[in-house]
C-alpha cells in the first residue's frame, strides 16, 4: 500500500465535510476542524495494481475573515478544490486556492469538484461546467460534478485522483 496526502479546500459551506463524512473509511472528530483548522480522514482506493491509502486533510473552509491555513498544504500529493454550484462566488474563489498552491510550489494533481449538483437541472449543470472550464482549463486536471447527497461522482473523483497521484 502507498500512502498519499490529499488536501481538501474550498469556501465555507461548500460541502467538503459532507463529502468526507459520507465517503471515507475512517475519520477523527469534527471538533479538530474548528479547533486547529484541519481534520484528518482516511480513504483507501483500490487501483488495478496497487491500493492507495489517501490521508485527507480537510482544511477549514475559507471565509473573508479567516483564510485557509496554508501551513497544512506542505507535502500534499493531490488537491481537491470544492465549489458549490448554487453559489457562483465559491467557483470564483477557486482561483485563489489555485494561486495558493502555486505559491507553495506544489505541482500536484488538482481536481475541481462542483458539489451539490443534485440541486440544479441539466441545462444549469452544462452552464456551470462550461463556466468552470472557461475559468480554470489548464490549471485543473479534471472537473467533477458531485453530490454528497446522492453520491454522484464522488467515487469517480477519488479514483481519478488516486491514478493521477501515482
Amino acid at each position: 500500500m502507498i500512502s498519499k496526502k490529499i488536501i481538501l479546500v474550498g469556501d465555507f459551506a461548500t460541502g467538503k465535510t459532507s463529502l468526507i463524512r459520507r465517503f471515507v473509511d475512517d475519520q477523527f472528530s469534527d471538533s479538530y476542524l474548528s479547533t486547529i483548522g484541519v481534520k484528518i480522514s482516511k480513504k483507501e482506493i483500490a487501483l488495478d495494481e496497487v491500493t492507495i491509502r489517501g490521508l485527507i486533510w480537510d482544511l477549514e473552509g475559507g471565509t473573508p475573515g479567516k483564510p485557509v491555513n496554508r501551513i497544512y498544504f506542505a507535502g500534499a500529493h493531490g488537491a481537491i478544490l470544492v465549489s458549490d454550484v448554487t453559489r457562483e462566488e465559491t467557483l470564483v474563489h477557486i482561483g485563489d486556492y489555485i494561486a495558493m498552491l502555486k505559491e507553495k510550489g506544489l505541482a500536484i494533481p488538482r481536481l475541481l469538484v462542483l458539489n451539490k449538483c443534485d440541486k440544479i437541472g441539466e441545462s444549469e449543470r452544462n452552464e456551470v461546467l462550461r463556466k468552470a472550464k472557461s475559468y480554470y482549463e489548464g490549471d485543473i486536471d479534471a472537473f467533477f460534478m458531485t453530490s454528497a447527497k446522492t453520491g454522484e461522482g464522488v467515487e469517480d473523483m477519488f479514483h481519478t485522483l488516486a491514478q493521477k497521484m501515482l
Partner: protein
Amino acid sequence: MAQDPQALSRALQGVISPAITEGIANNKEKMIDALYPIMGGMISKYVTQAIKEMMETINQKIEQGFSVERYKRKLKAKLTGVSESELLLEESADAHVDAMFIIHKETGLLISEAHLEESRIGDPHMVASMASAIRDFINDWIADNAQIADEIQILSYGNATLYIESAGSVYLIAFLDSEPDYEQRTQINHFFGSLIKKYATFFQTFDGDESAPEVTALSDEMQAYLQAHMSQKAETPTTTAKKNPAKYLFWGVGIVLIAYAGYGLKSFYDQRTMLSQIVEKTGEHLQIEERNGKDVISGLLQDQAHIETIRKIVRYYYPKDEVQLDLGLSIEAAENMQSQAQQKYRKMLEAQQHTIATLEDSVEKALRISDERLEKIEKTLEKNSRERMVRQEIAKLTGIKKEIGKALENALGDVPYYDRKKRVLNFSSLHLFEAGKTEPNGEKMQVVISLFERYLTALEPYMPYIKYVTVRSYSDSSGSNEENLRLTTARAQKVKAYLLQIPEVRHDLLGKHLKAVGEGERAPVLIDGVEDPEASRRIEIGFVVDKKKIEKKLKHCSEEYRSEYL
C-alpha cells in the same frame, strides 16, 4: 632532590595538602572560583545531575509529605513485606514508553511505527497525520507570536504524553504515559539519533510506499527498544542505583565538590524560590534543567497570557539573561485560545451585523421619507400643470376662431388668394372655370391643391373642434338660378374630387369632413357696381367650427377648474 621528582613530590605533599585543606576551610567561595575553570567543565554535568536528582527527591517529599500516597505506600510495605524505600524507588521509575512513530515531516505520513502489545493504537496512519497537524498548528502559532524560538517538543493530553523530536525530514515521536525527565529524554534521543544516522537517506526519499524493506527494519528496531525498555524497568532498584555514577563521583571529588554543591544549593534555593513565585503569580508549574551548560526553564503553559509575568520573574533572578526559556502551550490552552479567538470573532461579527442592520434601517427610513416627499412634490407639480392646461384649454376654446385665424395668417399671410377677414382661400382671381363648364383648368387646379395643403396644415391642431372644411362654388349671374345652382354644385364636387386625390386628405379623417357646396349665383363679384363674370365663377375654401363640441368642452373645463382649483 631536583634529580628525584618523586622525592620532591613527597616533600611538598606534606606542605601543600594541609594548605589546601586550610584554604578551603577558611575561604570556600574563593577556592571554588579558583578551581572552577579547571574542574568545572568536567564535573558540572555530574553536579547538575546530582542537584537535579536532589531537587526531584525534595519535590517528591514536599508533594507527598502529607499525601494519601504516603500512607498507601506505608500500608503496602506492611502488607507485602517490601521496604518503603524500595517501593519509593519503584514509584520514581521512568515514564512508560508505549509506542514510537516516525513521521515524514513534510507530508505527515507515517513511515514506520512500533508499539507494545497492550498499547496498540487504533489507526496509526491517521494518528500520525493528526499529530503532525497539531504540531504544525502549535508551531505556527508559536512562530506567529514570536515568543518562543524553539519548536514544540512535548504534547500532553490527559494521561498521554507525546515526546516529539524533530530531525531533518522526520518527526520521531515517543508515546508515554507521563512526561519524561531529562535523563529519559536523553536516552530516547540517543536511540532516535541512531535511527537518523542509519536511515537518513531513506527518510529523505520516502514516497509513501510502505513496502520498502527499511520500513520493516525500522519497526523491528523500535520494537526491540520498547521491549528492552520494559525489561530495564522490570529490574528496578539495584539497576537504578547502579545507573547513577554521579553519586560516586560526587563523594569521590570530596571537599571541593561538597563546597561546589553548597554553591549549587544556594543557586538551587533561588531557583526553587523563583519557581514558587511563578506558581504563586500565574499558577504555572515549570521545571529548570541544564542543557549544554545553560539553565533552561521548561514546561507547558496553561495560559499564553502568563508569558510576560514569567519573563519578569525570571529576569529578576537571572538579570544577565543567562537562562533560556523553553515554554510550550498545552493542548487545552491552545484550544482555549482558539475558543477565545472564535468568541472574539463572533462578537465582532455580531457587532458588525448590528451596525449594518442599524445603517440599513436608517437608510430605509431616509429613502421612505424621501419617496414620500418626492410623491408630494410630483402631485403638486401635476396639479399645477393640470391647472395651467385647463386654463389654457378654456382660453383656447373661448377664442378659437381668432386662434385659427392667427395660424392661417402665419401659414398663408403672403398668399394673394388668402382672405384674412373671412379666413378662407378665395380663388376668384384665378379664373378656374370657363363659362358653362364644370371641369376646372388643370394647371390652375394645381395651384388650388398646393394652397389647400398649406391651409390644412395650419388647421391641423384645431381639427377636434372643426366640423367641416368646405369647398364652396359660386357662379356668375347669367342664366337661370336653377341652372347656376346645378353648375356650382357640380364644380364644387369636381374640385372636392381633385382634393381627395391628395394622399394626406384621402387617408385622413379630414376626408370625411370635406364638404362640397354649390352656392349658385347668390354672391357675384362686383367691381364698381358692375359684375366681373370671370371672377364670379370661383371657389372658396374655408372651415366651419363645431360649436356644440366647443361648448360642451368649455363647460367641462370650467366645471373642473371650479371644483379643483377654486
